[in-house]
């Protein structure tokens, strides 16, 4: 599908700039041009598509659906799936949390949503398709959904309501299956498109610098690190690789879009995919800024339990991928 991009990159590097094939710098430059073009196209397509979905399927609808319907256990999976299609910025996590709790949605279900939503977001998916291909992306998305679902179920079983901050408990006590009068914006697609378009451009503007830096670093590494370099250190049978990769990843945040391209090169150079996926889930899914925000609604203990459960689930899925892939 992207052969033409490769042709352009080859033409630019070998014909226009007159580099010789096999030169490190030429390979790195070729990789950079090819990857940036391809990834920017994919990011644009995925963000735009998600923008349209989200315009017709806003968070208020999700909340009303979850608080209205009895789903006999499936609500965790539903919340997790809604997390996929509803992009959300971590600064909204607190109002969203309160909104869900107030709607009488169980804590575990709310967590399922909160975990999957940042983990499987439009930017990560766009980057993933570009860097790792469709198959790995599908695996990542499915495991993200399952991870949110399972973590949500576990967190519900732990009965954590007592660790909420006092004012949230008050909200919880008065929670009702309220149906907020939700006035859907009645707009035609042509009225919505300019708004969606603006949003797409804003998201792209925000992530492009990181992506470029990430791909540039990846490009350099691609040209200079020999194939299979990491296999010695991070082989599949190294039991500590997955937990270490995951724990290193949790504090990284704003540069998630820059880290994915680097991770792709690491995989190409011999780091097992499961270890890399665990690392990326840690980067994308959990972050310290989010933890700071959540302090307004959760006690430190609850945040620690929340992060530990998710981290453990990520480590587990890392092992699982290394086993099956």
């Amino acid at each position, binding site marked *: 599908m992207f052969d033409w991009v490769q042709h352009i990159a080859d033409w630019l590097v070998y014909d226009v700039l007159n580099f010789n094939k096999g030169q490190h710098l030429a390979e790195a430059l070729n990789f950079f041009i090819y990857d940036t073009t391809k990834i920017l196209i994919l990011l644009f397509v995925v963000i735009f598509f998600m923008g349209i979905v989200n315009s017709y399927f*806003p*968070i*208020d609808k999700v*909340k009303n659906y979850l608080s209205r319907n009895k789903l006999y256990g499936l609500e965790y999976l539903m919340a997790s799936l809604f997390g996929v299609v509803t992009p*959300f*910025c971590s*600064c*909204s996590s*607190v*109002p*969203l949390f*309160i*909104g*869900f709790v*107030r709607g009488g949605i169980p804590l575990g279900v709310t967590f399922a949503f909160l975990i999957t939503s940042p983990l499987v977001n439009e930017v990560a998916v766009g980057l993933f398709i570009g860097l790792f291909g469709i198959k790995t992306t599908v695996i990542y998305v499915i495991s993200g959904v399952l991870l949110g679902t399972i973590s949500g179920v576990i967190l519900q079983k732990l009965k954590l309501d007592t660790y909420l901050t006092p*004012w949230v408990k008050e*909200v919880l006590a008065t929670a009702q299956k309220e149906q*907020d009068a939700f006035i859907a914006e009645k707009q035609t697609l042509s009225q919505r498109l300019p*708004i969606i378009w*603006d*949003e797409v451009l*804003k998201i792209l503007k925000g992530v492009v610098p990181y992506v470029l830096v990430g791909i540039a670093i990846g490009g350099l590494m691609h040209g200079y690190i020999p194939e299979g370099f990491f296999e010695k250190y991070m082989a599949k049978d190294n039991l500590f690789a997955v937990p270490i990769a995951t724990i290193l990843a949790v504090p990284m945040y704003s540069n998630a879009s820059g880290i994915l391209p680097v991770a792709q090169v690491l995989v190409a150079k011999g780091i097992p995919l499961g270890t890399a996926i665990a690392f990326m889930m840690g980067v994308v899914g959990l972050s310290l800024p989010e933890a700071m*925000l959540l302090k*307004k609604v959760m006690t430190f203990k609850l945040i620690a339990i929340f992060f530990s459960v998710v981290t453990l689930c990520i480590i587990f899925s890392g092992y699982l991928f290394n086993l099956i892939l």
Partner: protein
Amino acid sequence: MSKVIKILGTGCPKCQSMTGVVKDVVSENNIEATIEKVEDIMEIMKYNVMTTPALVIDDVITIKGRIPSKDEVLALLN
């Protein structure tokens, strides 16, 4: 009559750029309005919004979860 504009948001970059847009529109068009930034989460929750930033004009939520364009804000204020 002077309008009361409230911007709900916990201080994320998006909320700040919404404030910028609204302030520009108000000053460029000489609109009589007071702009208030609401950063306290408990205050924000009284408006029942789940995504920030949100724009509240005379106690009506007009926009939530995204940054509006200048034209949009102007249309809402008129």
